[in-house]
């Protein structure tokens, strides 16, 4: 019962946050340079015509009028039409065609991250301070410290030489997915391993582990039946976010391997000055972020019996 109340409250809170954040983002986007509303003919248009266009778009209205109009359009599912990239095409159409590609890559790499990262973290925690732990910690440090671009390039150069495959992604050739997937999943693997190790180490210091050992369980049994179970649950919290954000793709990797995904879309839109597309993308990402956190909390409420109505999950 409490749990249902908690979930309802949490959803309500997310809705409030969502409306505040989307409004804030919309107002922020009013600061975008206005060149982005005329497509590619900016220079050809006289100032009078510009003002005219802006007025027609409603951009010269007071901010609250614009905000109201924005919300009414948003609730009808209308995010506007692209002005530059694919003129006149609904932005949602542009986004969804690209998102599918990123999503497939992202999901595969997420799977690799968890499958590699969790066992790695568990082993690091079990052999804390010993060779494997040091090796793993070194890996985590390298991957999280070196800027992505550096090791992505390294993987691309080294990998394509070593495996004798092309540097770029070609549709339908599964071998060309290997390097982008390795690059994509490396960072996530490292952070999964690091968090897993930390959660395991935290759990191992808990009193209940002592009780479990005092009842006569071997440390292997304690690790699997108690510690691992408890340590994996906090990992679940970020899972929905991770899954959702796979569609945003990776800017670096997609441009390195010229994968037609979402990664470069925002930056292209910004550079080319396609303001409606920029707005749609930023709103989409913000909404995804809020929804991801919400789903994470709801998932936790299902997994962790201690979630109380009071808000934050306990312990």
């Amino acid at each position, binding site marked *: 019962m409490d749990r249902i109340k908690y979930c309802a409250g949490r959803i309500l809170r997310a809705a409030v946050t969502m409306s505040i954040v989307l409004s804030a983002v919309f107002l922020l986007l009013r600061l975008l340079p206005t060149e982005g509303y005329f497509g590619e003919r900016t220079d050809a248009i006289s100032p009078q015509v510009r003002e005219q266009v802006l007025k027609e778009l409603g951009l010269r209205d007071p901010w609250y009028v614009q905000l109201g109009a924005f919300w009414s359009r948003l609730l009808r599912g209308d995010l506007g039409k692209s002005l530059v990239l694919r003129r006149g095409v609904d932005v949602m159409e542009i986004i969804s065609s690209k998102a599918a590609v990123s999503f497939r890559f992202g999901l595969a790499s997420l799977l690799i991250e968890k499958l590699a990262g969790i066992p790695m973290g568990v082993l690091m925690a079990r052999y804390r301070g010993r060779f494997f732990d040091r090796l793993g910690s070194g890996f985590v440090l390298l991957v999280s410290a070196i800027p992505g671009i550096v090791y992505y390039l390294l993987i691309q150069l080294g990998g394509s030489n070593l495996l004798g495959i092309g540097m770029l992604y070609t549709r339908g050739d599964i071998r060309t997915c290997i390097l982008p997937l390795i690059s994509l999943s490396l960072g996530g693997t490292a952070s999964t391993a690091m968090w897993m190790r930390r959660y395991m180490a935290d759990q191992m210091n*808990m*009193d*209940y582990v002592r*009780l479990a050992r*005092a*009842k*006569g369980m*071997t440390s292997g049994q304690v690790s699997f039946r108690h510690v691992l*179970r408890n340590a994996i649950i906090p990992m679940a919290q970020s899972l929905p976010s991770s899954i959702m954000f796979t569609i945003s793709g990776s800017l670096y990797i997609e441009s390195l391997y010229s994968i037609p995904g979402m990664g470069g879309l925002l930056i292209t839109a910004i550079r080319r000055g396609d303001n409606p597309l920029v707005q749609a993308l930023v709103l989409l990402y913000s909404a995804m972020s809020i929804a991801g956190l919400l789903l994470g909390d709801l998932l936790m409420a299902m997994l962790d019996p*201690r979630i109380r109505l009071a808000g934050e999950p306990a312990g």
Partner: protein
Amino acid sequence: MTELVKVMGQEAGNADPVLSVRDLVVKFRLRGRELTALRGLSLDVYRGERLAIVGESGSGKSVLTRTFLGLLESNGRIDSGSILYDGYDLAKFSREREWVKIRGGRIAMVFQDPMTALNPLRTVGGQIREALLLHSRISGAEAKRQAIRLLDDVGIPDAERRYRQYPHEFSGGMRQRAVIAIAAACTPEILICDEPTTALDVTVQAQILELLRRLQSKYGLTVIFITHDLGVVAEIADRVAVMYAGDIVELGSCREIFFDPRHPYTWALLSAMPQFGERGKPLCAIPGTPPDLFADVRGDAFAPRNPQALAVDFQMRPPYFEVSPTHRARTWLLDPRAPELLPPEPVRRLQEAGAKYLLQNRIPDRENRPALHEKQEAPEPRKSFRNFRKEQAAQQSPVLEEAARRLRLGEGAGNALRRSLGGGLGQYG
């Protein structure tokens, strides 16, 4: 040696020690230095007794019992000495395979804080069932049935429903009952209770102690209590070991420790009981702090805090002196050459009270009472401290008889004590 063991065993209702600790030295590495947590400690635990180990924080009580289960922190190790149990020397155990045979099934433990001792993400029932399945070959369904019975047994009402609940749905006292149920599920021979009531409300404390006493007689357990609460000791213990700075400074039956303490530390400990506080006067506190166990302790570890320490206390470590066959203390005060010191006022009052009761109520000797490990059909009514004192008085040793004669009891002294003790300890009864 063997003679002593026999006599002390008889005192406890049984002749053989179930667990024998000999000259145990435990060291810890801490911040690059070595700390000696136990300094050559020896102790026999007898079958079916309730032994209390008292001492202030850091005296090594918990360290001692952890060694019985091989659950020392990773930076601690047994330096020398032996822990004999059932033909094994637990001090020599190094591999988990060996320990698993002892833990739970032979020696079980109840921890101090029930709020954290249970896995918060698994049902209470599941955790009890797990203990059952570890130690007996039964089916899962049977284990569940037994787990529910155990929950019922430790006084958790509506056990069927409670079985499916999570620890956070239990109150502190209920969780401690669940922890005790887990310990009982292992069917151990020895149950170690590491401050089982410290984290609980006073009213719940008494219930938990009562439960432990009931389980002890029902299953014939040997129970070792660790506590710094002398009220708990008085309530439950047959025998008391007083620990200070990694060693047992005095060991005797409960009445001997309360009514005829010999070690200045025991005096100080008893004097510091709030029950002896007088209105308007500050409570007795023991001055100073325990010795630095990183350094070698010279002489009597308590000497620096003992205003009446003898010169010899600073030079040589005292041996154990026998006070009675069941009572020994490590203090030079018991050497015939030592000057006679009177214990502090509250202890004198205790001695007087003990002696007075002895003179007034001649109650049959302890041998006639049922042995401790015998199964008792009906749960015995909760002992009030009054009863406890009667019982104590009933068990006076010849030592106390003489003490009583010598002390020539003053009228009214006993009444004052009764008042103060009755008032203070009433909460346990």
